């Protein structure tokens, strides 16, 4: 559609418009992002499973006794369980290093530097309204969101903050760097960062995999696309940018080949 025709805020759609949008897929995630996401998911799975099993002391422990003995039986010795934990962790680090060096401009830069992860006024309002709606205290419509809604942004911020902490403290513990005082605090920071992400993961996994409304979001992490209706209703500000890009592309192509102009 023409740029001028793109609404500034969400407006009710006609049935045909809605149907049309439902059929139309919009690209949301690049392949690299998808791969990285699932790589992270598996790393987190393995590391949480082994990490929880490694902590046996009553002061620090979070897993119950039966879990600890099952985990030890799987690996044979606790030492090999630790070796596995470190091997996965260091592989995770290396992947990030490679991603960071080669993919910074294309992926990391674009994601972060273009403020896709910082909260704006809409995001903050969204957080309030969403919470109230869950508690059944409000029927107010949610403010328009960008490519990632405020909840997703918060989770991303948490992961971006926690991951380096987990990696660095993991290295400090694995190689006994900088002396006992630093190692002691590294232990605490490691556990705190992990626990924080786990709390967020509760919501993230539920929202991603269980909550029906967000089903398209889950599939977008496999196919890379969402249907346009979902984008319009849940990520309006991003839908708007996509539409603008489409319109600009069309306008550029119209100027080039007037004969191929498609009327909306």
């Amino acid at each position: 559609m023409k740029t001028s025709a793109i609404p500034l805020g969400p407006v009710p759609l006609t049935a045909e418009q809605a149907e049309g949008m439902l059929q139309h897929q919009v690209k949301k995630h690049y392949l690299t992002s998808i791969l990285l996401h699932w790589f992270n998911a598996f790393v987190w799975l393995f590391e949480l499973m082994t990490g929880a099993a490694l902590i046996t002391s009553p002061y620090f422990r979070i897993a119950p006794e039966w879990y600890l003995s099952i985990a030890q039986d799987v690996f044979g010795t606790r030492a090999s369980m630790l070796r596995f934990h470190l091997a996965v962790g260091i592989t995770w680090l290396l992947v990030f290093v490679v991603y960071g060096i080669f993919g910074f401009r294309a992926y990391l830069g674009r994601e972060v530097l273009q403020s896709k992860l910082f909260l704006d006024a809409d995001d903050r309002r969204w957080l309030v309204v969403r919470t109230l709606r869950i508690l059944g205290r409000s029927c107010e419509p949610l403010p328009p969101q960008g490519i990632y809604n405020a909840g997703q942004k918060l989770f991303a911020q948490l992961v971006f903050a926690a991951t380096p902490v987990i990696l660095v403290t993991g290295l400090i513990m694995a190689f006994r760097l900088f002396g006992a005082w630093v190692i002691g605090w590294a232990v605490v920071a490691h556990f705190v960062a992990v626990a924080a992400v786990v709390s967020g993961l509760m919501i993230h996994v539920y929202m991603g995999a269980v909550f029906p409304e967000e089903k398209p979001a889950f599939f977008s992490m496999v196919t890379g696309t969402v249907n346009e209706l979902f984008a319009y209703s849940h990520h309006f500000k991003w839908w708007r940018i996509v539409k603008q890009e489409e319109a600009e592309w069309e306008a550029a192509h119209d100027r080039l080949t007037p004969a191929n102009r498609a009327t909306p």
Partner: protein
Amino acid sequence: MARYGMVTDLRMCVACHACTVACNAEWDVPAGQARTEVRTTPVAGTFPSLTSSVFVAQCNQCDRPPCVDACPSGATHRTASGIVSVDKKLCIGCGFCVDACPYDARHLDRVTKKVDKCDFCLSRIERGQEPVCVATCTAHAKYFGDLEDRGGIVSRMVYEDGARRIETGAVAVGPNVYYAGRPAQLDLVGATYPPRQPRMPASAAVWRRAFKPLMLAAIGATFLGQALAFFTQLKTGEKDFED
């Protein structure tokens, strides 16, 4: 199952230091650090009525070891035979256990950066040999054996001859290293080298007292929150959402 213990006879011991040098040599402990420490109490009394005693300190392989509770990686663990052992492959060198030990029997090896301590020469006793300190003691003042074996020498010294362990009312973690001596001498060493309260460095304390409950609460809350949402979803039905 065996419960290993050691008895040092302070009447015979002359503080020759053979045990600490032999132990260091056997286990590659860096010079200046030691798994076992030979001490002499300060001379008490006024000339010429004086008393003093020798003393040999090492890990007591306690029944209720505070160090095991303090270890975040589970490297420190108690074996079935009562020996508290450190799995060096799991040790991250945080030193929580060093602060936790009421007898200050552990140290961070300055070369490996891991925790080191006496383990009654576990790998030697598994091969039927004696701990190195017992084997080399010039005064034959150290005895090692199974406290459950009532006929054995250590049991006899403990249960019949009055060998004592170093405990106080406040810190009673069940040490398995005993000392034989004249009663006044045992009183003196008990008073001079009492166990202290287990300590936690700030980091461990912060985790245990603040962060762990906080984090468990956070995870619990988010889990419950999602459970609640899930129930709501079940009630409403999936289709409605899609609409």
